[in-house]
């Protein structure tokens, strides 16, 4: 496990920038290309890189499976709840207009929150799927075949 020194160092250097770029894509999606889906995938790819270099067990110490499991549901919950807020303010479901002091601001807040929900779910699901595949393969090799 002491080999791949170059890969380890490069990965350690790259991962913070990947995470930062994912956040940029997430929160800058209003102005440039990007948004929740893309940001979620990029965010998850940082964890995939970590898992590829350091192994699945180490990755599960960084992001426990329970965190991912909660994240998967939480994102959709954020989205759905954002839709419910306007209901209490006298507007149809998912019409964000009353969420700010004037309609465009409300729309902006709504879009922001919805995209955040999408990002949380997508990144959790992507990381989860990869960890499931990778974890299973490794374990099977070790104690069965």
């Amino acid at each position, binding site marked *: 496990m002491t080999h791949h020194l170059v890969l380890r160092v490069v990965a350690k250097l790259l991962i913070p920038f990947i995470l930062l770029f994912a956040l940029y894509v997430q929160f800058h999606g209003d102005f440039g*290309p990007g948004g929740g889906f893309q940001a979620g995938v990029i965010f998850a790819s940082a964890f995939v890189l970590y898992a590829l270099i350091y192994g699945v067990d180490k990755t599960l110490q960084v992001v426990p499976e329970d965190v991912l499991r909660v994240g998967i549901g939480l994102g959709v919950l954020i989205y759905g709840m954002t839709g419910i807020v306007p209901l209490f303010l006298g507007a149809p479901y998912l019409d964000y207009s009353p969420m700010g002091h004037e309609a465009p601001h409300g*729309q902006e807040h709504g*879009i922001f929150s*919805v*995209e955040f929900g999408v990002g949380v*779910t997508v990144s959790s699901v992507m990381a989860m*799927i*990869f960890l*499931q595949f*990778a974890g299973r393969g490794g374990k099977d090799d070790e104690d069965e075949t």
Partner: protein
Amino acid sequence: MAGTIYMIVRLHGLFAVVMLGGIYSLMAASMFVVLDAVDVAFTEAAVGAGISTVLMLGALALVKSEEKVASRQVLLPLLTALIAGAALIYGTLDMPHYGDPNAPIHLHVAPVYLADSEVKTMVPNVVTSVLASYRGYDTLGETTVILTAGVGVMLILGGNRRRRRKTGKGGE
């Protein structure tokens, strides 16, 4: 791109096929950039060329990396594909030319979105405002699809690991 597809069909080593799939996605992404669909290109590059290639490799670790050579007859599938392809191409003959300003898709709701989006939502990227506000229900549905996919994978692949950990064979 056609060359990549031909190689994918011909090759039997699945590792090379996965790599070619990634290359194909990357080329599709550059094609979307040429067509000015930057958001789609972004998604294609991140999901198609990035994550799904890695997931395919993860799946390859679980199965054999050589394709089984099927000895079925190939004439009927070929004929079906040719007829379906010909029908699709015949269908495109009636479609408006690419970039035609009078195409129906550019005359229905698109002008309203383009004109109003920035005023009404304060979001300069029209793709984002259409996706999250005008078409909020659709995106909620898409997010739920991803949730369902994640739950499905967890149910199919996750149970095994749990059981093994319980019997004290956690790996290390």
